[in-house]
């Protein structure tokens, strides 16, 4: 039944773009410290879409993202990223990853951070100024990262993930701690990137951000609860509010005897 859902979306993706899915997961499981953190996750994501990965903290979002970029150990099931197994050398130029905590050097300046990660990724330095402007850090280029605010640090980290125009961006809570203006601007940037063919997987635990996404993967306790467009999810739960919709989904999934929501296939994921 899980397979059916993957197929339906994969077919849709193929019809739309005639390309293999940017990400395809089939019964992906991860054990950490004797606990199954991902408990059979299956989905397929089309190219050039902003995919919101939502769910309460501890539901497995970060583990799934780590599996996608190839740094998670003990992953079972099938996982394909841009048609290849995650983490293979050929993918490391094509996948940009931003970890949850800003993983940049606090004792270097913004520009020194970007210069280093650009050298590592083989990106020409000419790209850096444009990138700094994109994340609105042009004025901070020569400041040390440990002198920046939390939101600015997060944007340095984001800029490092954007280096080299990756085809898949895996961003773990990129908008945490940002003010509404900046958050809006970044979601605008994500939309532009997607329009240019980049696939973005963006995690958040703020349901409010879900409406900016083309598709949503709702996760809970290591499983995908639903995979659909924001509109369809809200409609399914009979609510305009995505937070309410999510709560309704959780309730129906945890009711004894209720069939697993994993059986549902997205109705208009490609819309």
């Amino acid at each position, binding site marked *: 039944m899980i397979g059916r859902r993957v197929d339906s979306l994969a077919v849709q993706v193929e019809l739309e773009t005639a390309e293999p899915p940017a990400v395809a997961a089939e019964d992906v499981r991860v054990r*950490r*410290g004797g606990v199954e953190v991902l408990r059979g996750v299956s989905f397929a994501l089309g190219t050039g879409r902003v995919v919101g990965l939502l769910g309460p903290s501890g539901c497995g979002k970060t583990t799934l993202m*780590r599996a996608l*970029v*190839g*740094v*998670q*150990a*003990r992953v079972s099931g099938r996982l394909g990223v841009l048609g290849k197994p995650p*983490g293979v*050398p050929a993918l*490391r*130029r094509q*996948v940009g*990853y*931003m*970890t*949850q*905590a*800003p*993983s*940049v*050097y*606090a*004792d*270097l300046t913004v520009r*020194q951070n970007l210069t*280093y*990660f650009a*050298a*590592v*990724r*083989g990106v020409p330095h000419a790209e850096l100024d444009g990138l700094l402007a994109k994340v609105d850090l042009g004025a901070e280029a020569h400041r*040390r990262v440990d002198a920046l605010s939390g939101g600015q640090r997060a944007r340095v980290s984001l800029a*490092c*993930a954007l280096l080299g125009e990756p085809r898949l961006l895996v961003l773990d809570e990129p908008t945490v701690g940002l003010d509404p203006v900046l958050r809006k601007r970044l979601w605008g940037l994500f939309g532009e990137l997607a329009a240019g063919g980049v696939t973005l997987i963006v995690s958040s635990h703020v349901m409010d951000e879900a409406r900016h996404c083309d598709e949503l993967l709702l996760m809970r306790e290591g499983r995908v609860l639903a995979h659909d467009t924001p509109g369809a999810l809200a409609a399914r739960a009979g609510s305009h509010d995505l937070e309410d919709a999510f709560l309704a989904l959780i309730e129906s999934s945890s009711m004894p005897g209720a069939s697993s929501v994993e059986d549902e296939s997205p109705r208009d994921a490609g819309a």
Partner: protein
Amino acid sequence: MITIRQTLATTRRVLSQLRHDPRTIALVLVVPCVLMTTLRFVYQHKLRAFDAVGAPLLTVFPLATMFVVSSVALLRERTTGTLERLLTTPLSRLALLGGYALAFALLATLQAVLVSALALAVLGLSVAGPTAMVVVVCVAVAILGMGLGLLASAFAQTEFQVVQFFPAAIYPQMLLAGLLVPRQRMVGVLHAISDAMPLSYAVDAMHHLGRQTEVAGALWGDLAVVVAFAVASVALSAVTLRRRTA
């Protein structure tokens, strides 16, 4: 080619980080000089003894400093997530560690030149062999200390833990390297253990330089053992640096 560029970029980055931390640089450079000066005055009335212990003791500074600096630096990469990010990029693990090695070797050379120059020119330490070789041995020990530090960081989760590896990895070497008692006079078991420890060969090399004017094959042999241990520990830390972690 790409690997070399990545290595040099990493070296430059590590050096920039060090430049932003003048206190660490000052401690790395000044502390050995202060200690060496103290030692000189401890032996105020036995200057021949200072000549005997001075050069071998020079090896302890780079070993200790580089162990601490490199183990904490790599551990910091682990805990701040920069290592995880780097492992998703085309950067090879050997280029990363090679970059570290080069940066710290530069710092170690500076330290070795400074403390050797002070000991030989100001404090009156006299060695029979060429003074340049004293610096070479110090640099080799520094790279060894760095390799051991990088390796130790693989077995620690926190900076607290990694610092505890210092007495575990360095003190036994200091006790058995022939600094206190000549290695030939140790009981069999301890002599055997001392034979298996890299610092022993560095101290042997310094003893050699202290007594003999000519650079003989034995000295090169000792130096080769130190370098081999250093290379092995860097290689081993590249192996223990897992791309995929739980």
